[in-house]
């Protein structure tokens, strides 16, 4: 792959925006030592290339999925940035959240680039209320760090289920499907790390939320499933301990289910 060719085919304004976003991120120092600027055109080019290969525009259904993902990434990115800026995160836990935050910022840039080069219009960047309209204490005030952690777990586990639920809708575009899968597994790494930070297992047992807010139960609804594969499916409980059969497979959520969860945090 020739980086320069692919990158050169992008809208200059977009290129500048993505790069300046990266610079802004780098200037905060949170990605210091992590950023490999040279590798960026390769990954970005992957999406740009696919978009151009199809005559510059992506089909509406794929753009809709990308904008759906972008909204979730805006939520995560804003959440971690606010958390880091607030000082609510103890120093010893900062490496985890710095890294997660850098990933979410990169996902935002990547999705914005894919949508724009694919001829789409970016979904509006929502204003978020991480108290869920007063349902929760302010997660960015230091006594409420456990709330911040719980929200992080909920967002990451939601992200895993959201990307998983949309994979089938991306099957017509190999490059975008692969990129979505590469984001999906990173969200799962985040979820595992944050869950363990909270004293949970890295994997989900049954439909146990581990978050003491009933409004979060939909994030884990259906995770108890132990029948896998195409219908009628295979019962996996004979293959190991019952709770392991549930843990061994993560479950998808539909776009509607995810939007219902996300709307808790979006100012109308």
């Amino acid at each position, binding site marked *: 792959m020739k980086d320069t060719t692919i990158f050169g085919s992008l809208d200059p304004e977009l290129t500048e925006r993505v790069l300046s976003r990266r610079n802004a991120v780098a200037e905060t120092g949170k*990605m210091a030592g*992590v*950023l*490999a*600027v040279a*590798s*960026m055109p390769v*990954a*970005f080019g992957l999406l740009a290339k696919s978009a151009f290969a199809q005559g510059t525009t992506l089909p509406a259904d794929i753009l809709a999925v990308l904008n759906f993902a972008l909204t979730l990434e805006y939520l995560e990115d804003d959440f971690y940035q606010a958390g880091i800026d607030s000082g609510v995160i103890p120093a010893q836990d900062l*490496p*985890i959240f710095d*890294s997660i935050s850098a*990933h*979410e*910022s*990169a996902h935002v*840039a*990547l999705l914005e680039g894919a949508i724009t080069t694919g001829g789409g219009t970016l979904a509006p960047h929502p204003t978020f209320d991480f108290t869920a309209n007063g349902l929760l204490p302010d997660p960015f005030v230091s006594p409420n760090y456990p709330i911040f952690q719980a929200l992080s777990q909920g967002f990451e586990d939601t992200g895993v289920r959201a*990307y*998983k639920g949309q*994979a*089938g809708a991306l*099957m017509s575009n*190999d490059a975008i*499907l*692969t*990129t979505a*899968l*590469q*984001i*999906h*597994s*990173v*969200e*799962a*790494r*985040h979820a*595992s*790390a944050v869950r*363990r930070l909270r004293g949970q*297992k*890295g*994997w989900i047992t049954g439909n146990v939320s581990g978050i003491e807010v009933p409004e979060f139960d939909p994030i884990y609804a259906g995770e108890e499933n132990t029948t*896998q*594969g*195409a*219908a009628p499916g*295979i019962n*996996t409980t004979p*293959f*190991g*301990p019952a709770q*392991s*059969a549930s*843990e*061994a*497979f*993560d*479950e*998808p959520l539909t776009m509607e289910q995810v939007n219902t969860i996300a709307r808790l945090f979006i100012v109308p």
Partner: protein
Amino acid sequence: MATRLLEGEGELNFLDRLARTTGRRTFLHWAGLTIGVVALGCGDDNGTEPPPGDGEVNLGSGDTGILNYAYALEQLEAAFYTQVLLGAYFTGAPAGEKEILTDIKNHEVIHREFLKAALGAAAIANLEVTFATVDMANRTQVLGAARTFEDLGVSAYNGAGKLLTVADNLLTAGKIVSVEARHAAAIRDLIVPFSFAGDVVDAMGLDKANTPTAVLTAADSFITTTINASQLPTA
């Protein structure tokens, strides 16, 4: 690695296989035929050797081939953790580490058995694997190998997604890969606290996606059985 040349096999065959190995990287082993005999059910304890080339396991083509590829990797992972749990490091490990490794072993066995059931008659035979290079008494070596297997598994499913043509199969792969990623993060955290991703996630926030050829090559030294992946879809 439990490779050996077959009795009566001349140098010509040896070179021929070596050439195939270098020429077609999908023929991963030129001399790991012993287990293939058992696996294919065409051998017996008296050691009747198959003709050259018959000892391999062929993953097949299409979605079935990709699912067999996944089944091969899950066999490898399940066998690894099964051995880990019998080793001295595990026996003396803190309770928290024992719980993680026991859970992961159970998950991998369930993945393996599920894929075997889903593939039915199309499932490849049991693979012969070896972990002779991993000292099961040594925490660093065990966790280092576990990290390799989990990261490799994640990259394998990520790379194979686009090769599947049936949406149900893609969804199933997606249900498994995120659990592998959860494993990878936990293992990495045991090795270096707070290092759930490390450099395996790039500057664009993306995990790796590897081709079957790259993954099988990386796993080669742990799999004794010859795997023929030549019919797998490539795009």
